[in-house]
């Protein structure tokens, strides 16, 4: 295993279970014993926040065996997208990871633009980055609300949903709907930025750091929270890389890897932010990574707003008529625009033949989109690399000598969204 940069060792060697890396086997001496109880943390469980099913073998309070069963929300996204044109297909990825929906849309649109070789205007790039970061905060808020709710801090739920609604108001103002905005087109944005957006966004950016202080004030020095998160669900750097973890789970285990810094896309290289990395690889560190990331994202949004305010009146979508709909008023005058409009709307634009894998840093980690096009108006194959799908593989490794109550904290800290796991 290529050794990650020298980090304090959380535990020696590797805790990945032997025959099957994702199933924690019951130790042989306990196998047939009377005290073993097999419990289904089944599809409809209040604490799994989604239709995840964990088959858990309990010896008293200790979790001695675990295997995750997924597929209860399998929606056949990739099959449906193969039957839709590229234009209609952009609506699907948002429903995959319905918490950071903007990043899903972004990764599919970036893949299309890369295959098309399409230049996106600067205003669209910065607005995409602004919305993607707002979406990261929104996703961390819903994660924090539900993770803290499971560990007993009910009031955190209401605090977080207060800020979440502020963000969704911003989305509603810009894109018309709260979630699943379908605001990104292949070539830029669907609409221009409405006038009232900047003052509202400024208000949110000023308020958000105080909001994060509220959340930390609620739980950071709370004895119960510390007792239930410190030293629970350990995952060393090498195990995290071997298990393909990414995002807050990887950065919580001491690996300094963030796609926004390592492979900057959009305009992340012109924005100043730093990436929180913690070394202990337990539930507490993943929580701290989420909290710091919310602050960093707010800083990025502020910088995006500064740049965007200076771009009044710039084009917000490319003007390659083969791909982008011509503006309405042009249809009444020029015949070519009418033909382009007709071709795009009826048959859909064609993406040149090729295959590409684009990866984006979504709220949960590396969200990849592998697209194969055969030169026609429909994608031939779309495959999404879901960070939550991989995070669930680490449940067996993090569960060594955990109690039942820790199981809830660990599954909560892995921040899995079942829509993304089952695609």
């Amino acid at each position, binding site marked *: 295993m290529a050794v990650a940069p020298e980090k304090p060792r959380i535990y020696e060697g590797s805790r990945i279970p032997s025959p099957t890396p994702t199933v924690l086997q019951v130790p042989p001496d306990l196998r047939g014993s009377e005290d073993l109880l097999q419990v289904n943390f089944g599809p409809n469980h209040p604490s799994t926040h989604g239709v995840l099913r964990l088959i858990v073998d309990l010896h008293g309070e200790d979790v001695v065996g675990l295997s995750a069963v997924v597929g209860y929300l399998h929606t056949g996204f990739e*099959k449906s997208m193969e039957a839709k044109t590229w234009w209609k297909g952009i609506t699907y990825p948002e429903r995959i990871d319905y918490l950071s929906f903007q990043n899903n849309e972004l990764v599919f649109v970036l893949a299309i633009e890369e295959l098309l070789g399409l230049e996106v205007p600067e205003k669209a790039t910065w607005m995409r980055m602004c919305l993607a970061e707002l979406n990261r905060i929104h996703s961390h808020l819903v994660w924090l609300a539900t993770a803290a709710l499971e560990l007993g801090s009910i009031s955190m739920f209401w605090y977080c949903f207060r800020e979440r609604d502020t963000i969704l108001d911003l989305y509603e103002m810009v894109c018309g709907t*709260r979630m699943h905005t379908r605001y990104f087109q292949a070539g830029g944005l669907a609409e221009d930025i409405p006038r009232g957006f900047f003052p509202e966004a400024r208000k949110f950016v000023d308020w958000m750091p105080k909001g994060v202080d509220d959340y930390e004030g609620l739980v950071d020095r709370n004895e119960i929270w510390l007792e239930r998160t410190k030293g629970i669900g350990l995952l060393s750097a090498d195990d995290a890389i071997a298990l393909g973890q990414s995002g807050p789970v990887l950065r919580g285990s001491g690996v300094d890897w963030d796609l926004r810094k390592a492979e900057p896309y959009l305009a992340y290289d012109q924005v100043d932010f730093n990436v929180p990395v913690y070394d202990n690889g337990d539930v507490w560190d993943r929580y701290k990574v989420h909290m710091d990331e919310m602050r960093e994202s707010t800083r990025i949004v502020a910088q995006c707003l500064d740049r965007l305010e200076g771009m009044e009146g710039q084009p917000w979508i490319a003007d390659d008529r083969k791909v982008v709909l011509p503006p309405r008023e042009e249809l009444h005058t020029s015949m070519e625009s009418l033909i382009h409009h007709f071709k795009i709307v009826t048959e859909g634009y064609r993406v040149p033949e090729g295959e590409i894998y684009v990866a984006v840093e979504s709220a949960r980690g590396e969200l990849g989109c592998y697209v194969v096009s055969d030169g026609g108006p429909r994608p031939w194959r779309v495959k999404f690399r879901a960070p939550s799908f991989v995070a669930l593989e680490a449940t067996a490794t993090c569960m060594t000598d955990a109690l039942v109550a820790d199981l809830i904290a660990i599954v909560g800290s892995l921040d899995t969204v079942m829509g993304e796991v089952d695609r």
Partner: protein
Amino acid sequence: MALKDHGLNSERVLWVGKGPGVFEEELGNLEDKLGLSTVEKAVAWAQGSSIWPDTFGLACCAIEMMSIVSARYDIARFGAEVFRSSPRQADLLIVSGRVAHKMAAPLRQIYDQMLEPKWVIAMGACASSGGMFNNYAVLQGVDKIVAVDIHVPGCPPRPEALVEGIVRLQEKIKAGVPPAYEIRGVAS
């Protein structure tokens, strides 16, 4: 005879300038035929105004279902903010999200394990009709396996839309309309 005379006070009914909508009219003359006794009306009122939903979050609609409990769209005003996780203590099953075929059997089992009288809200396009996923994996509409009382449109529906759905369900209950499985005579 509008619902107001039955003491129903949901905001829409009390809207000053608004005459009875289509929903109220249907409900209105339905009540005369049902002719509830005062005891039944009292029981219907009690059942209607304290409906306990079951936490049955599937996909994106579950996130909007969660937000009806938050401070801004507070469902506590209608007595429905207690989300029970066990079907034994729940009256209302809000199917929020797309139902995969693998999830259909657990959904049916949970529905069977709920006690009568029970109601079902199909929240969102995916639960009501399979939505945009007309493919091998998704059940094309929850009413194929359970009797649905209220279909809430939207993808995901706004929290107000779900609150409206719950308010309309309460009006149906208080008007004495039996649950869907009784109307359609299917296994409860």
